[in-house]
């Protein structure tokens, strides 16, 4: 009998279970959640022979170490990092067999922030509202990994991909975020709109899965007062009272009262998930498609 489970030997700074999230419940105050870099999560699933909806692990900076109780195929992608199996170097970005009882080490990211680890069969924790994602804003889904925790695995769905390596986007030195203005750009001065789209920002270390925080020139409001709470979207560039734009990521609140000056194109958000603190950020005005 095989024991399809994964022992967490080293949880890392913040490693969470993620899938494609739980959209459709925003009206109840439930964030969408899901992998911050969905392309990387989908790729490692494909490499490991999993369906796109399978749950993977999302690490933060320093990876994690795992010991499967049965032989599994894994794939590590997203932020590039060293991978070892039983202490021997193994491939990043390609299917790797980890024999039962051997240690898989996912090392510290050499570029970017978040690596993704798919294991054949997927992480099979109990779904909450149709998703296994950990939502750090509202606390839904399985808790972040802790040393010694045992994660159940599902049955493998198919054979791993027959590739040696799969191309993955690099991590750029500068984060370029294309934005369309609105819905509340009229709450800001013309100077603030110019500042947003012409001046340099940097990724702040205070960011998380809820939002990418920035450091840089404050954006000046054209009107005072409070905006009544309104619905928020993924990629919304919200401007809190300190004037520094925050880009909403997967665990963002579903409603909010600070004005949204612009919205980042969804295609540019996976790169935002990989931008390390200090990375230069440029917001580029883009027309509506």
């Amino acid at each position, binding site marked *: 009998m095989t024991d399809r489970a994964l022992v967490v030997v080293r949880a890392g700074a913040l490693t969470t279970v993620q899938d494609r999230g739980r*959209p*459709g*419940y*925003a*009206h*109840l*105050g*439930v964030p969408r959640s899901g992998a911050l870099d969905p392309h990387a999560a989908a790729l490692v699933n494909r490499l490991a022979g999993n369906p796109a909806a399978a749950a993977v692990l999302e690490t933060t900076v320093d990876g994690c170490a795992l010991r499967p109780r049965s032989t599994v195929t894994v794939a590590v992608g997203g932020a590039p990092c060293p991978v070892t199996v039983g202490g021997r170097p193994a491939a990043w970005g390609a299917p790797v067999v980890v024999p039962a009882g051997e240690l898989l080490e996912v090392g510290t990211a050499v570029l970017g922030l978040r690596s993704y680890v798919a294991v054949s069969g997927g992480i099979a924790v109990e779904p*909450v*509202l149709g998703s296994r994602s950990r939502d750090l804003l*509202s606390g*839904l889904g399985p808790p972040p990994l802790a040393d010694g925790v045992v994660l159940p695995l599902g049955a493998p769905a198919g054979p791993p991909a027959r590739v040696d390596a799969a191309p993955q986007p690099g991590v750029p030195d500068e984060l370029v975020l294309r934005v*369309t203005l*609105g*819905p509340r750009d009229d709450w800001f001065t013309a100077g603030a709109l110019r500042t947003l789209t012409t001046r340099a920002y940097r990724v702040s270390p205070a960011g998380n899965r809820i939002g990418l925080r920035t450091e840089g020139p404050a954006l000046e409001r054209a009107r005072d007062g409070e905006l*009544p*709470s*309104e*619905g*928020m*979207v993924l*990629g*919304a560039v919200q401007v809190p009272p300190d004037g520094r734009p925050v880009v909403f990521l997967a665990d963002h*609140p*579903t*409603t*909010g009262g600070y004005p*949204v000056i612009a*919205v*980042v*194109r*969804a295609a540019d958000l996976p790169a935002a998930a990989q931008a390390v603190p200090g990375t230069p950020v440029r917001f580029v005005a883009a027309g*509506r*498609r």
Partner: protein
Amino acid sequence: MSGVTALPVGDDALLVEVASGVQAQALHAELLRRRAEGSLTVREIVPAARTVLLDGLADPARLASELAAADVPAAPPHARELVELRVRYDGPDLAEVAAHWGVSVGEAVRIHAGTEFTVAFCGFAPGFGYLTGLPARYGVPRRATPRTAVPAGAVALAGPYTGVYPRSSPGGWQLIGTTEAVLWDHTRVPAALLSPGTRVRFVPAGDE
């Protein structure tokens, strides 16, 4: 509907703004009706204080012009279920709220328990509803210093809204009572006891 402004949000969302909370509830009910009958395809319909967000639209520009020309009912239909929440009016801020209203504590309880509320929208935490129904003169400010821990089931007031904390969390609302009702249980269907449009009455414990 006159007074409807549809603001584009990114490439595939619309923020539809109306003049009042009642209009937002009416618009929300109308949009849910359209989705149920199949004439509106959208991932999320998120009502809020004066707006309804439509996220995940194929053609937001077309819907924006349709909505500007559409006839949205002036008031929401009162077809939604009524949820009764048994409450002990024992909150630490009840006396302060009564003083703010200029009435006795007993009268404050009578006013609150005598009001039929509607869940205008949810947010802050899964299952946390913003309930409207109290006359505007009974609005109260948030506490100057938020509490670090408000217990689950706390019935609270802030601005024009009443809310019930689904679980223990920090909070700045004025606490007037406690209910043992389970507002959120993700293993239950539906998980949320209150969702936008639900009618709510608070029944003082001992009055049933």
